[in-house]
C-alpha cells in the first residue's frame, strides 16, 4: 500500500496497465512529454516510449476517431480529453461510432477505448473548464460511464475500464484530484493522506462497475450521489447530525439499482445530489427508478440537489456549486414530512 492522491492513483493505474498489456496505449493533448495538464500521465512516456504514450494534435474528434481505429486493430487505447468541456468535438465519434460499433456489426467489431476526462468545478475554471456532462453520455446506449470519488476507487475503476471490452467514459472530478473536498472553499485543503481511501495498492487490482459503495450506513434517509458531491453530502449530513445512508454510485452505467433501492426501501426517504445541471440531468433518472421501484416505501417526495441550469459562472462559482447548505436544505425537506 502507498499514500496516493487521485492523480497519482490514476497514474499508477495506467502505469500498471502499460506494464501488463502491450496493447495498452495512451493518447491525448499534452499527455506525453509534459505528463498532462493535471500530471495524470507524468513519467509514463519516459518509461514506455513515444509509441505507447502519444502526444496528439488538438482535435478531440480525431483523438476519439483514431482511438476507435486502433481499438479495431487490437490496441486498447486510453484517450485523455483534457477537460470534459472539450469533449463535444468528439461527440459524434463517441455517440454514433464508438458506442454503437459492437451493435451495428452484431459483435464482429468492437473498440475497447477508454476516454478519461477531468470534470466538475471548484477550480475557478469558468464555463469552459467546469462542466459535468456525464448525463449526456449516460443517455447514449452502448457506452459505460464512470466517476470515482477517491484514489482507491479511481485506480481500481480505471483498470476495470481499460480491461473492459466495451467503451468507457471515465470522468475524473478534478476538484478531488488532491483531496476529499467537502464543499467549503474557505477551509484549508484536506489532503488525501488523511483519508483511508488515499491508501492505494501499488499493483494491479480492480473495482467492479455496477457496484455502488455505501460510504456511510444510516437509517434516516438515503443520499444517492457520486463524484465531488460524495464529500459534500457527508458534510451536510454531519452538520445536521442526521443518520444518513450515503451511496457513492461510482459507475452510472451500469447502475447499481439494487443497492439504491434496498437503501430507499429501508429509509423511506431519498435525496439525489450531483454537481451537473438539474434539468434532464442524471438525477432525474435516479428519481424515476426510485419512484418506480420504491413508491410504496417512500415517506416523502424525493429531493434533487444539482447545479443550477445555467453555464458555470466564473464569478459566482460558489453560489453555483451545490454546496453542503443546499444538500442540508434537501435533507431537511425529506425529513420534515412524517
Amino acid at each position, binding site marked *: 500500500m502507498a499514500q496516493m492522491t487521485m492523480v497519482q492513483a490514476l497514474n499508477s493505474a495506467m502505469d500498471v496497465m502499460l506494464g501488463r498489456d502491450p496493447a495498452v*496505449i495512451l493518447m491525448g493533448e499534452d499527455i506525453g512529454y509534459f505528463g498532462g495538464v493535471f500530471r495524470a500521465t507524468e513519467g509514463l512516456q519516459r518509461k514506455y516510449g513515444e*509509441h*505507447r504514450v*502519444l502526444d*496528439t*494534435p488538438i*482535435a478531440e*474528434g*480525431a483523438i476519439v*476517431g*483514431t*482511438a*476507435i*481505429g*486502433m*481499438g*479495431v*486493430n*487490437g*490496441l486498447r*487505447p486510453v484517450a485523455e480529453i483534457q477537460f470534459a468541456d472539450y469533449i463535444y*468535438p468528439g461527440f*459524434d*465519434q463517441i455517440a*454514433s*461510432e464508438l458506442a454503437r*460499433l*459492437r*451493435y*451495428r*456489426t*452484431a*459483435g*464482429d*467489431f*468492437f473498440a475497447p477505448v477508454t476516454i478519461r476526462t477531468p470534470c466538475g468545478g471548484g477550480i475557478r475554471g469558468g464555463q469552459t473548464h467546469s462542466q459535468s456532462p456525464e448525463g449526456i453520455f449516460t443517455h447514449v*446506449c*452502448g457506452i*459505460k460511464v464512470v466517476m470515482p470519488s477517491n484514489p482507491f476507487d479511481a485506480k481500481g475503476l480505471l483498470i476495470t475500464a481499460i480491461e*473492459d*471490452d*466495451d467503451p468507457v467514459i471515465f470522468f475524473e472530478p478534478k476538484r478531488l484530484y488532491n483531496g476529499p473536498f467537502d464543499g467549503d472553499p474557505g477551509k484549508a485543503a484536506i489532503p488525501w493522506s488523511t483519508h483511508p481511501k488515499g491508501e492505494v495498492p501499488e499493483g494491479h487490482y480492480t473495482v467492479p462497475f*455496477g457496484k455502488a459503495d455505501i460510504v456511510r450506513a444510516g437509517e434516516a434517509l438515503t443520499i444517492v450521489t457520486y463524484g465531488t458531491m460524495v464529500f459534500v453530502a457527508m458534510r451536510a449530513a454531519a452538520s445536521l447530525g442526521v443518520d444518513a445512508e450515503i451511496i457513492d454510485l461510482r459507475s452510472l*452505467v*451500469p*447502475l447499481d*439499482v439494487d443497492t439504491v433501492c434496498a437503501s430507499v426501501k429501508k429509509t423511506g426517504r431519498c435525496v439525489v445530489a450531483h454537481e451537473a445541471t438539474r434539468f434532464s440531468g442524471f438525477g432525474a433518472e435516479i428519481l424515476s427508478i426510485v419512484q418506480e421501484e420504491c413508491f410504496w416505501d417512500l415517506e416523502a417526495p424525493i429531493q434533487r440537489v444539482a447545479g443550477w441550469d445555467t453555464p458555470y459562472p466564473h464569478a459566482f462559482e460558489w453560489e453555483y456549486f451545490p454546496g453542503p447548505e443546499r444538500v442540508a436544505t434537501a435533507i431537511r425537506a425529506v425529513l420534515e414530512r412524517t
Partner: protein
Amino acid sequence: MVTTSRLHVPRTPARPGEMPDFSYLQLSPAGAVARPEASAPARDIGALSLELVRVLDDDHVAKGPWHPHLDPEELQVGLRHMLLTRLYDERMQRTQRAGKVSFYIRSLGEEAVSVAQCMALRPGDMLFPSYRNQGVHIARGMPLVDLMCQLLSNTRDMCKGRQLPVMYHSVAGNIFSISGNLATQFPQAVGWAMAAAIKGQDHLAASWIGEGSSAEADFHHALLFASVYQAPVILNVVNNQWAISTFQGYAGGEQRSFAARGPGYGIAGIRVDGNDFLAVYAVTRWAAERARTGAGPTLIELVTYRVGAHSTSDDPTRYRAKDDHRHWPLGDPIERLKRHLIALGEWSDERHRLLTEELEAEIAASWKEAVAYGTLNEGPRLDSGLMFEDVFKEMPPHLERQRAAMRQAAASAATAARAAAASAAGASNPAKD
C-alpha cells in the same frame, strides 16, 4: 439590376433543362502525367494533386509511365468484378422497387474505384469503405448471398437486422463496418493504420469518402493525424461530382482540387481518372508502396461521375440535367476496360455477352437462396429479442428486464388476438356451440 455582392455562390453547371457542361473539369491527356518514385517526398510532387493521371486514351490504348502492365487475365478479373458489381446493383435496385428491400444505393459508373483499388491492395490491408463501395466486397470475394441477406435484414443478416441496407461488413474480408454518418471512417482508418505501425505490421488501411463528405471535420482530422504520424493509410476522395443534389463546388471543389488538400497537410495528393481502371490501379499501387515503405500517407482524388440517383430515395431529375452522364468526358469504366481488352485481342462482345449471362444467373440463384432465409415481409424472421444483444459485450440487467417486458407484451398481444379471433369465430357461427 446589377448585383455587386462580394458573396460568391458556387455555380452548378447544369440544372434541369440546361445543357450539360463539364468544361470546368481540369483534364490531362492520357500518359501525360509524370510518375515519380514512390519514395518521393510529398513536398516535391505537389503537381500530382492538380493534374489528372490517365492511362487509357480515347482509342482505348494504354500509355505513359503509369501503365501498370497487368496481365490480360488480371484485367479480365477486374472486368468481371466491375460487371458483377453493376449487375448486382441493377438487380438489387429492382428488388427495392418491388418492395423486397427497404432502401438501396447503387455505385453505377463508379465501379472502377472500388474494384481496381481493392485489387491493387493486399488481402490483409484493412478497408474502411463508404456506402458506395460495394465493389470492394465483390472484389474481396464476399458471397452475394451474404450481401443480399444484409439487404433483407433476414435470419442470415451479418448485422442481425440492425443496419440500413448496404451497410455491410466482413471480419474475414478485412472490410470495416459502414456507417451512415458521413466521413467517420476516415480518422478510424488512420487510427487502424497508426496501430499497424505501432505493432510493426506490414499492412495498410484504405478508406473512401465522397467529395461532399470531405467538408466534414473528420476528413480534416484524418489528414492531420495521417500527416503527423505518417500513418500507412490511403485516403480516397471519390469525387463523383454530386452530394445528393449539391454540386461539388459546394464542398470546395470549385477553387481547388480535392487532392490538393493533401499537400496542404504535407501529404502526397494525387488526382486520377476514376473511370480508368488501369490508372486507378496504378495510382493505388503507388500509394500502397508509399505506405508500406514508410513514405507516408496518400490522398487520392478519384474523378468520376455518379450516374445514378444518390439512393432509391432520390430523384436526380429534380436537380440536374437529364442524361448529363452521357456528356461526362471520362466515359464509363466498364466500357473502357472492355474496349481496351478487345483492342488487345483478349476479349470480345460475344464473351462479354456470355459473361453477363453467367453473372446474371449467379445473381438470380443467389437471390433465390437469400430470400429463403426471409425478407422484410415474409418467410423466417430474426428473433426481435436480438435487438437487446451487443449493446454491451454482456447484457446489463436493465436490458434483460426490457427484453422480458417486450416478450411479455408480445405474448399478451398474441393471447388477446387469439381470444378475439375465437370470439369472432363464435359470433359468426352461433350454431357451433
